[in-house]
């Protein structure tokens, strides 16, 4: 499986520009991913002229690795990112004046939810007699509120369209999680920059989430979850091509697409034979039966959920035009008062 995904020409990186390398990578990734997923008529990503990458998750293929204790994508993600998992200090202080802190370091083996030690997991729902398995992780939004609203710019949207946390800058305030429609980033206390400032009074740790294996895609490899999936249910490649493929597949199976309209658009396209409204309802029921239903880490699938910045952006044009209008009025006033003086 892995061999089929390998991209020719990786060894020639030094001879080509970064941009063209990414274009080729994306094209190759898209082609291989979609071929594996069974879709056809895929044009090269270079034709689209876009460097943005994405993934297509085909829920008609994913079976959550039935029979296995941990789905292959989850295991692959964990082993690939193990070296980046947090190693907190021994005595983690509470978030004063709160009497709590978020510590997952003693639950590293949890694979049924998102944690700082588990950046993807698979949800299983039964809808209309069909068993649906849904791999979950960061959607890599087009206009990510987590990146835009981080008070310290500790998050980044790469030129390829993926989003990632800078663990050296993150203070662990978890605002990114609050403004994410799926509450994806997971927090670990007792690690990161805040320990060097005022660990008792401010900060909360570091946020962790999927970065779509940015180090791998930068060198022409597929994300670990894509490589590991035994069913070829996750495809990686040019976003525009995958979006097209997602809608084609949805049309073919009379199904549904999730991720294109949500949060103003994302780089993750789910294709499902059952509606996402029903999947969302089932997930809400499952969330309600979690040990702590309010806790993040078990995302639902709200259909066409808006972007946190929709209202702010809606009035931003007025914000930028207001000073122009008032400057014009001030100019007229100044001119009139001066003219008045001269006439006197």
């Amino acid at each position, binding site marked *: 499986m892995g061999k089929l995904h390998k991209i020719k020409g990786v060894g020639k990186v030094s001879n080509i520009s970064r941009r063209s390398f990414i274009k080729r990578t994306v094209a190759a990734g898209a082609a291989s991913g979609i071929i594996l997923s069974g879709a056809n008529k895929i044009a090269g990503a270079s034709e689209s002229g876009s460097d943005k990458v994405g993934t297509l998750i085909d829920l008609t293929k994913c079976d959550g690795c039935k029979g296995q204790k941990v789905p292959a994508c989850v295991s692959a993600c964990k082993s690939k990112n193990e070296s980046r998992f947090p190693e907190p200090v021994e005595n983690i202080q509470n978030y004063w004046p709160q009497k709590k802190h978020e510590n997952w370091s003693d639950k590293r083996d949890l694979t049924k939810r998102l944690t700082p030690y588990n950046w993807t997991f698979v949800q299983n729902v039964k809808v209309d007699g069909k068993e649906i398995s849904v791999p979950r992780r960061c959607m890599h939004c087009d206009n990510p509120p987590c990146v835009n609203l981080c008070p310290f710019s500790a998050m980044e949207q790469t030129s390829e369209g993926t989003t990632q946390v800078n663990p050296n*800058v993150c203070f662990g305030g978890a605002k990114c999680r609050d403004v994410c429609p799926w509450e994806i980033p997971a927090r670990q206390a007792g690690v990161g920059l805040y320990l060097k400032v005022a660990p008792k009074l401010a900060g909360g740790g570091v946020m962790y989430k999927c970065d779509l294996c940015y180090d791998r895609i930068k060198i022409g490899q597929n994300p670990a979850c894509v490589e590991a999936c035994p069913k070829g249910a996750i495809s990686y490649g040019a976003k525009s091509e995958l979006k097209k493929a997602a809608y084609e597949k949805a049309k073919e199976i009379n199904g549904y697409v999730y991720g294109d309209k949500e949060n103003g658009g994302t780089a993750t396209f789910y294709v499902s034979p059952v509606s996402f409204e029903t999947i969302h309802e089932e997930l809400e029921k499952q969330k309600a039966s979690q040990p702590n239903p309010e806790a993040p880490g078990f995302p639902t699938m709200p259909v066409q959920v808006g972007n946190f910045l929709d209202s702010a952006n809606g009035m*931003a044009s007025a*914000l*930028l035009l*207001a*000073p122009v209008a008032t*400057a014009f009025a001030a100019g007229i006033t100044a001119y009139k008062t001066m003219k008045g003086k001269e006439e006197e």
Partner: protein
Amino acid sequence: MAKEKMLRHSGLVRLVHWSIALSTFTLIITGMFQLPLAKRYFIDQLPGLSWTADYSSTVLIHYIAAAVLLSAVSVHIVYHVIRKEYNLIPKKGDLKESYQIIKSMFGLCEEPKSDKYLAEQRLAYAYMAFSFLLILVTGVVKVIKNFPAMHFSATFISWVTNIHNLATFMIIFGIFAHLVAFAIKANWPLLPSMFTGMVDLEYAKHRHSIWCMKSAVGKEKKHQPKYSIGR
């Protein structure tokens, strides 16, 4: 008998001052609540403050206050540039003169004669103008970067964010110093002028003699009464 008064700040100038003051105050508060403070420190539990934990509310109020501040600053610049009023721009020797003014407060020397603004006020203005320039430019970039179609490099955005945060503290310090200045008795007569626009003529003659002289010359030239008597 009522004291004679002199017009120091026109209605428009006062409107701009208070628009900047109120919007800046609002921006500082809502800016602080862009940090995850409200929930953690139970501020949202206080009566009437539940909104502080809602980023969507605080960011909207921040945007509205920013529009007011940007508008007030643009009026300030356009109005005074067209009228060629540069009284607040620092002059050569202002540092030395400010030092003399401070020394005179302790009775160590005589206070130098001042124009409409004291040398230290001109320096304070330059500091505040620079701080506001930083925060407004970075603020506008932050608004633009939030648009769906916009994408800037992480390094650039990191600089913008850090400068915006630094400028916030520069402004807070500036406001603090501005308010502390009114703890000094010598500055008290200036306070009413920020509300009524008028300042005691005797005070102006004593402390702002250069300004009074210029006004008197202007009055002779234009045969226009500059003093508002008996207010």
